[in-house]
């Protein structure tokens, strides 16, 4: 569904992405991990068209993203730090997104309802706590039933209960055969979700393996241990 070909991005002198080649397919739940500043968010923003690559191409469902913006209808994006117009209320933001999308399909409000957002529609965005803002971000990402989910640190800032609700929703969508791309620092949280792992370092993809392969090759049971195992091996 997403094909990334020799993607380079340079911010001034800083090389954020250094020739990324990836192929992400339907039905996978992929964890994008790596140390801070390794280019995860830049990669995600490139896919969304927020960052313009210096070199290389990205195709979503076969369409080059430089040529069209309609592919974004297929993407539900939850940013790491959701930032919204201060003056608007939750209800207005949701209304606005619905109007802008103007799809014929009924919006998927399940997650919104589970987060109890309908009771807070009158609250203004600037008065919300970080967790509630994340709930709004998550609800918006899932609202239009897209085929691809891009979730940047989805559980950061959410309370355990809400994080669990979100995880259940992600699993539900994965079972529907959608492509889910998650970045996270907390590996233990992802154990029961993900099917593939992409590890990035300094703008490069260090490895892209399925979880089964990863566990088999290292002989570990836990993903986090397997990864630290690989990292130790590559360093020495």
């Amino acid at each position, binding site marked *: 569904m997403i094909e990334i070909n020799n993607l380079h991005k340079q911010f001034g002198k800083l090389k954020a992405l250094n020739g990324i080649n990836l192929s992400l397919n339907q039905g996978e739940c992929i964890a994008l991990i790596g140390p801070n500043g390794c280019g995860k968010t830049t990669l995600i923003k490139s896919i969304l068209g927020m960052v313009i690559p210096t070199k290389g191409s990205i195709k979503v469902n076969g369409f080059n993203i430089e040529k069209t913006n309609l592919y974004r*209808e297929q993407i539900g994006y939850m940013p790491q730090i959701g930032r*919204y117009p201060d003056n608007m209320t939750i209800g207005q933001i949701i209304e*606005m997104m619905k109007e802008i999308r103007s799809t014929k399909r009924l919006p998927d409000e399940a997650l919104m309802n589970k987060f109890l957002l309908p009771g807070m529609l009158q609250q203004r965005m600037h008065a919300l706590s970080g967790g509630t803002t994340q709930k709004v971000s998550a609800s918006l990402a899932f609202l239009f039933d897209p085929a691809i989910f891009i979730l940047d640190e989805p559980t950061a800032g959410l309370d355990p209960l809400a994080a669990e609700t979100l995880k259940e929703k992600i699993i539900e969508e994965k079972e529907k055969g959608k492509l889910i791309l998650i970045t996270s620092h907390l590996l233990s949280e992802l154990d029961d979700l993900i099917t593939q792992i992409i590890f990035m370092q300094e703008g490069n993809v260090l490895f892209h393996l399925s979880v089964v392969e990863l566990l088999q090759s290292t002989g570990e049971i836990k993903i986090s241990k397997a990864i630290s195992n690989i990292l130790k091996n590559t360093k020495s």
Partner: protein
Amino acid sequence: MNRIVKFVILDILRNKIVLFYTLILAVLSWSVFNLEDNSTKGILSLLNVILLTVPLVSVIFSCIYLYNSAEFIELMLSQPIKRTKIWFCLFIGLVFSFVLSFVIGAGLPLLVYAPFDVGLIMILVGVFITAIFVALAFLSSVFTRDKAKGIGIAIMLWLFFALLFDGMVLFLLFQFSDYPIEKLMVVLSALNPIDLSRILILMHLDVSAMMGYTGAIFKHFFGTNLAISIVFVILLLWTIVPFLISLIKFKRRDL
């Protein structure tokens, strides 16, 4: 498109500053016309007030608004919407709100007190000045990520066009007072939308008779209908060009 413009306008109107701006313009305009028994004097005072405040408020508010809309722009960009469309909608939204304020605040009294043709030209000039300085705000905000720097550039632009440019022109006038530079002055004035507007309106008031030879040359040029059209074309260019440059820049910008 219309939906995004609608949200931008609602957002701006919710911000009380625009209402305050309307109110200030209204108070200024009504009081100026009520204080002066001569409507020409009233127009002159109002002209000076408008040519100082309208650009200032338009450029600074728009610039700050754009920086504050970073979130909104990001949110829109993750949706299936073209970049150019988002930028254009923001522009239309800002220009519309300020033009509305101007027409309600200063336009109504102008129509009531000023002679119809001068009043109309003045409203048109105000509309263009608003649009031009909103466009300049777009230009200054797209060139730097630093909010303080961006607003600084916006203020500098205002200072340059509202005050410094006149100083430079005066300096030239005195330095070259022995030479026939009246025609050059007409061309020079096209480089500053504020001056251009001021001259255009002055030439439609009787006071231009008091301005000597330069005034006569100006009157000769700016008094004709052709000149009015040319002035408005130049003002239109002043709106379109800065906005287009900012649009091209915005299309390649990383967010």
